[in-house]
């Protein structure tokens, strides 16, 4: 870890890995710290250009992190080129924030984690909280000095699940973080969002529905550890520290947000995000699907 963790918040200190989250005030106090790079990742590809945290660079989930041809993330060489061009070395402390309650920020953090970038943190509350608090934004272009980032292989086994991994996982906990009407099969996509082409609706058998926003308070910051435990662990879903868990949503962005909470805030070690999510499952031939509000039974 290059830059010391944020130890200013009692709430953050309670989490299993408090070094993964920083407060807006901590970030404001550390903006010019050598070895720290702030990354903005938004749903809207132009939002960064309308104003961003001073010195922040932009990483777009779609045009930067996704391979343009194959439905997959960029390879190690492209990833190295991308991060190097943003002034990020392998040792850099990266703090990610973004719009929509940090969906894409969490997604970017998760992709950086697939490549084993060690010190990547989330700005608690994201872009929304930073703005709500009246903190400084700028349209001044950030011109990072390009640095060397090593070419590393992506690890697609520890934090990422593919369709066949999910099939093999059935019987273990699955968390579907979509809206209730996507879960029960009324909708193929989020309310008010485009249908990205799922042919079937419903959910993966036995998946439990906990919409992503359940994990955050009104200001967009994560709920306290006791509150998260009550939602996902005893009293709620009943997830245990040694469970193997898979999260999914529509294309893997909202579930990255919950993945972060389970993995880093609650400390459940084995949590994978299924980025194929419903846009893959809902189109796959012969995979089992359950409709309705109940998780349903394991296929025979």
């Amino acid at each position, binding site marked *: 870890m290059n830059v010391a963790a944020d130890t200013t918040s009692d709430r953050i200190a309670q989490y299993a890995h408090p070094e993964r989250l920083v407060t807006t005030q901590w970030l404001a106090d550390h903006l010019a710290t050598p070895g720290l790079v702030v990354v903005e990742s938004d*749903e*809207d*590809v*132009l*939002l960064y*250009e*309308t104003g961003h945290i001073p010195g922040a660079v932009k990483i777009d989930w*779609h*045009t930067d992190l996704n391979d*343009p041809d194959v439905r997959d993330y960029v390879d190690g060489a492209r990833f190295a080129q991308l991060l190097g061009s943003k002034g990020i070395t392998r040792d850099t402390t990266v703090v990610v924030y973004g*719009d929509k309650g940090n969906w894409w920020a969490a997604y970017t953090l998760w992709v950086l984690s697939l490549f084993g970038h060690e010190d990547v943190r989330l700005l608690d509350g994201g872009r929304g909280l930073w703005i709500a608090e009246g903190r400084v934004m700028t349209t001044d272009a950030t011109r990072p000095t390009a640095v060397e980032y090593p070419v590393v292989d992506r690890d697609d086994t520890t934090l990422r699940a593919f369709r066949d991994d999910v099939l093999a996982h059935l019987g273990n906990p699955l968390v579907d973080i979509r809206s209730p009407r996507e879960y029960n099969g009324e909708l193929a996509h989020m309310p*008010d*969002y*485009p*249908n*990205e082409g799922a042919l079937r609706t419903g959910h993966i058998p036995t998946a439990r529905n906990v919409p992503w926003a359940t994990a955050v308070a009104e200001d967009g910051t994560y709920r306290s550890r006791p509150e998260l435990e009550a939602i996902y662990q005893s009293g709620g879903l009943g997830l245990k520290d040694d469970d193997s868990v898979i999260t999914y949503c529509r294309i893997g962005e909202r579930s990255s947000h919950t993945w972060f909470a389970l993995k880093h805030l609650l400390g459940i070690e084995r949590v994978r995000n299924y980025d194929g999510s419903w846009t893959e499952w809902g189109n796959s031939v012969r995979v089992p699907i359950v409709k309705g509000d109940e998780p349903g039974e394991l296929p025979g």
Partner: protein
Amino acid sequence: MADDRSVDVPETFARIRADFLELSQADRLLLLLEFSRELPELPERFASAPELLERVEECQAPVRAFTEVDEAGIVHFYASAPPEAPTTRGFAAILAEGLAGLTAEQVLALPDDYPFTLGLTEAVSLLRLRGMSGMLTRTKRQVREQLAT
């Protein structure tokens, strides 16, 4: 490539396309940002009654738009999208500028794939361009409906 296509759309749409295509990928994004700042305000009758506008389901952002054909057969396009959705605002502003003064027939003759000819696929992504495509499709449908009544 722009020359091959310049005959198939009305002048303003052709100029907008040429403006985009002559820029680098990064500058195309900035031009879209300029458009987003120029999206005209809604006239009062729509601003005070947003239900008159139709939600564009294909857009990720909550954009609403409506197209009117006046008695002279001229099309008027109105749209609103929040400042947090500059890409969508940019798409709407391109349509607002391009559609201004066109006849209903000219609008119906617009190629459905116009949004994909602006050279924005790399900078913005195909997924997001579908939002603009959805706006155009809905515009044409609204024009068709009004011509039929």
